[in-house]
């Protein structure tokens, strides 16, 4: 029996999760964690070279290839960051060795779950995978066992469960819509079959289903007003998990939404999911942009920035059209890379300064120039300033949709501007001015952070044609 790449990206994390749960010692396990993530990444990258056949349970197409490779890559770099981060946590005693064993196992379980969600060719299986990913991250968020961490995990858990329930209801409804056409049985939940028959589904049922799916998976995406878990979960969990949450889990939920959007787009009678997504996207972007101003916790601030960007991405996909969809995909990719890079920086900063309070952090470009300028570069990128990739995607989103919906785009532009103001008002105190807080030298690897930033920078100027073709295919698929 041969194992193709698609099964590989599932098996490697699953097996290594078991292995890591059994092994002691953080040095070894963190290396193993990296190794597993690297192998997964290699396997995922091979998807571009050899595309396996989509089976009954697993599927691969242009859309999820992008997501899988991105997930595997960020998961790999994050594991690298995590290694140095966890080392520091052990030294300072915030984490106990047995926690670390649990942590690494969970890390691989999370990767397994995300990859499963991305590769599943079944709406039920995808749902299960996303729930698994959610529950895993709940446990990771609560790992510090502080009041705040527990409260954040609890909030995440409750809101996440509601999302689980709503998404399941939506999934059932999709099945109900598909059943009269495809017939009873598992076939009515298989993506590849659903897509071919979507045109004849009951449109009204699809509409209701999409409402539930939007709210259910939208909770995971972090759309306002379903976002409440997100800032706290980012702020209180270990920083590698914040990076994975912002960089990956939100994407995975978004992926699910996009799949369903594609389904609805194929049905001519169903209300286009566009208006709903555009509304939610705009609300999220505007809301999160204003929330940046009163933040006192550095990680929570960037969590809100993630909400804002998710809003922009959902807006772009909601508007539709080849350019906006392309922009949405690009924005999503760039946001994943940039935001995780920022969280890498923030993780080191919080460890050096021993605090996440913005008021206690200052003048980083003097005290820790590399870290400080890295953060500045990250914030510049995330604020949509050139020459970083997010500039390109925001350029495309705004310019391609303004002629169609001027007022909506105007709101979006205001949100972008307000968010920029919020980010830089905080960056000014963090990175510039007189240094504040501890001046301990940083003992961290900056490779993951700068690797991400370099990619984001390069993408802002030059995108390889292969990637572009892939994105364009996906954009066309998304309608």
């Amino acid at each position, binding site marked *: 029996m041969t194992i193709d790449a698609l099964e590989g990206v599932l098996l490697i994390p699953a097996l290594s999760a078991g292995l890591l749960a059994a092994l002691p010692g953080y040095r070894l396990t963190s290396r193993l964690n990296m190794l597993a993530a690297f192998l997964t990444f290699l396997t995922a990258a091979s998807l571009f070279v050899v595309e396996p056949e989509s089976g009954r349970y697993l599927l691969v197409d242009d859309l999820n290839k992008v997501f899988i490779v991105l997930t595997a890559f960020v998961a790999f770099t994050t594991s690298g960051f995590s290694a140095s981060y966890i080392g520091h946590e052990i030294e300072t005693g915030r984490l106990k060795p047995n926690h670390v064993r649990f942590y690494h196992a969970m890390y691989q379980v999370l990767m397994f779950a995300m990859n499963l969600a991305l590769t599943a060719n079944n709406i039920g299986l995808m749902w299960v995978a996303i729930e698994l990913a959610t529950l895993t991250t709940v446990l990771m968020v609560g790992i510090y066992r502080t009041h705040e961490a527990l409260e954040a995990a*609890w*909030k995440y858990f*409750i*809101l996440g469960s*509601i999302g689980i329930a*709503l998404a399941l209801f939506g999934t059932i409804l999709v099945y109900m819509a598909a059943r009269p056409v495809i017939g009873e049985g598992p076939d009515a939940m298989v993506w590849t079959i659903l897509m071919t028959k979507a045109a004849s589904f009951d449109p009204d049922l699809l*509409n*209701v289903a999409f*409402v*539930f799916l939007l*709210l259910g998976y939208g*909770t995971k995406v972090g759309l306002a*007003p*379903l976002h*409440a*878990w997100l*800032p706290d979960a980012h702020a209180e969990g270990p920083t590698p998990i914040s990076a994975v949450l912002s960089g990956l889990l939100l994407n995975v939920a978004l992926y699910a939404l996009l799949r369903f959007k594609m389904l609805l787009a194929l049905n001519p009678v169903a209300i286009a999911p566009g208006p709903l997504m555009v509304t939610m996207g705009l609300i999220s972007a505007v*809301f999160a942009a*204003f*929330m*940046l*101003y*009163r933040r006192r916790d550095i990680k929570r601030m960037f969590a809100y920035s993630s909400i804002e960007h998710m809003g922009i991405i959902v807006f772009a996909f909601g508007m539709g059209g080849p*350019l906006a969809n392309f922009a949405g995909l690009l924005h999503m990719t760039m946001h994943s890379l940039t935001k995780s890079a920022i969280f890498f920086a923030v993780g080191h900063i919080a460890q050096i300064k021993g605090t996440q309070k913005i008021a206690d952090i200052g003048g980083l*470009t003097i005290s820790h120039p590399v870290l400080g300028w890295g953060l500045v570069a990250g914030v510049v990128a995330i*604020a949509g*300033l*050139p*020459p970083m990739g997010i*500039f*390109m995607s925001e*350029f*495309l989103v*705004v*310019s*391609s*949709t*303004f*002629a*169609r919906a001027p007022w909506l*785009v*105007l709101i979006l*532009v205001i949100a*972008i*501007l*307000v968010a*920029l*103001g*919020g980010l*830089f*008002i905080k960056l*000014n105190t963090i990175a510039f*001015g*007189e240094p504040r807080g501890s001046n301990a030298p940083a003992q961290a690897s900056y490779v993951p952070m700068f690797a991400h930033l370099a990619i984001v920078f390069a993408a*802002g*100027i*030059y*995108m390889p044609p292969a990637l*572009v073709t892939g994105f*364009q295919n996906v954009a066309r698929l998304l309608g």
Partner: protein
Amino acid sequence: MMVTVALFGVLTLVALAPIAIALSGKPNATGFVYGACLIVTLVMFLVALHSLLEQPAASTITLPLGLPWLGAHFRIDPLSAFFLVVVNLGAAAASLFALGYGRHEEAPQRVLPFFPLYLAAMNLVVLADDAFSFLLSWELMSLSSWALVIADHRRAENMRAGYVYLLMASFGTLTLLLAFGLMAGGDGAYAFDAIRAAHPTISTAALVLILALIGAGSKAGLVPLHAWLPLAHPAAPSHVSALMSGVMTKVAVYGFIRIAFDLLGAPQWWWSLVVLALGGVTAVMGVLYALMQRDLKRVLAYSTIENIGLIFASLGLALAFKAYAMDVAAALALTAALLHVFNHSLFKSLLFFGAGSVLTATGTRDMEKLGGLIHRMPQTAFVFLIGCTAISALPPLNGFVSEWLSFQAILLSPQLPSWGLKLMVPAVGALLALSAALAAACFVRAFGIVFLGRPRSSEAAAAQETDTNSLAAMYALAATCLIAGILPGIFIDALAPVVQVLAGARMPVQTGAEWMSIVPIAESRSSYNGLLVFAFMVITGTATAFAIHRFASDKIRRGPAWGCGYPDASPLTQYSASSFAQPIRRVFGSLVFRAREIGTMPPPGSRAPATLTVQLRDLIWDTLYAPIATAVGNIAERLNYLQFLTIRSYLTLVFAALVILLTVLATWP
């Protein structure tokens, strides 16, 4: 071909940034980076000059960068060639100046990497031939200059200046982005060629123009979008201030010209009303603000706003003429605008260099602490004086020429068919005349307080003449100012290809006129000869001096100045910058600034000092910017409650969202 060379130059500049980072901390880094910048920009200046004068056909290139399916388009046509000349001349002068000035920098590693990047970005804006490359370079220009503005980040006001700057710059970029979005349409035809080929509807074109005016205007400093400019320009190191004021605002003007004259096609007549009105108001407001400042560099920054107003007024006039197909008149107005672009880039850079030298020598930009520097820094004083004369639009220097051309264009306004414009243009002319007179007042004040009189502080008394590199840069600019002032015909003729492309006509060839006069329309109508005015003044002046010294007296005695009978008057009894501005403040200030003077006079016999407090309010800030800031703060405060809800309340939100969406579905038609 030309564009390839120019792009190679840009690439070299970009490559200097990482080199500068690598060199940080090395003692010779400053010299290396600025020297390299100087060489590169000089080469690019020559390239641009060559393409402007030799007029080879527009040179284009498409690189596989930027938007993947579009590529990055670059192009040198006469318009971009002219602005490349402006950019690189300013950049070369700034690099030369910085060879000396940069040595005094506290933290060169915060300036050196961004300086070449900034130069590269400005060049790229002018070279760009598609919307994406244009906006990317535009925003990169903002970003790199932001980094330069906050180079001295320990001072809170610099950080604030940088913050306001970045916000306004992004605001402008986003507005331009919207404009390009409209022009390119939903299909993303971002190449300028495609935009030119598309014919927008009248309303779309009007919207684009407004957006472009806001976007480019906010970068250029049009009132009321100028608020960032007087904060940011002075905060940067002086050679950067010179570039920001002298060159970057011109790049913004380029953006507006490119959109309004080139990409949008035929203008509507009423566009010009908006541009003219904004230009006139900007000119007067800018110089009035300038008169009220006591920070030397801020005076210069506000004066930039005034000059931008002049340029935009001329551009508005050109738009008006173009809308009615009066091509020759449009050519005159456009020439006036472009020539002023060039002139202003010269003397504003010169003045900022002078201010930088003063800052280095005395450590302060506060005019109330300066004075008497003409004794300590005679050469700086001399070139600064030339700059002051030029910017005050006084013959025989270059500022007057462009202003004179603007007035000549205004005098053609009776030929316009529109009554609105017929009545509006002379009023704008009055505003321009007022601003020119006030500019002269402003620079009498600036030069008089800083360089003349007696030193008002010990730092000013101990000032030293600045270094040779700085002086060389300033002398070069001053000489160019003089040449452009006395031989304007050459410069007007050099602008002809640009004007020909944009306005469809050009001004008559000037270099053929006798005695190098400039004759915009016909000699019986108007003419001006800077060379002769200069020559007459020099000849009569020296002849008189010679005659008097030879035949009457040439003896000089020194004595104390008349002090009203008080011995040893302190230098502080001199007229200060604020007291110099007092008459004008009384005339205009109560209206424009709500100026109030509160004097307290101690009772007779008391030895307490009498005090006079002047309160000025920046009405534009108070009525436009402060409310926005407050509103954002308020909204943020209100929304912030959402961070502190109970889980149950969050559930309620989710629940409410669900119920609302279901209700929407249930009621969907």
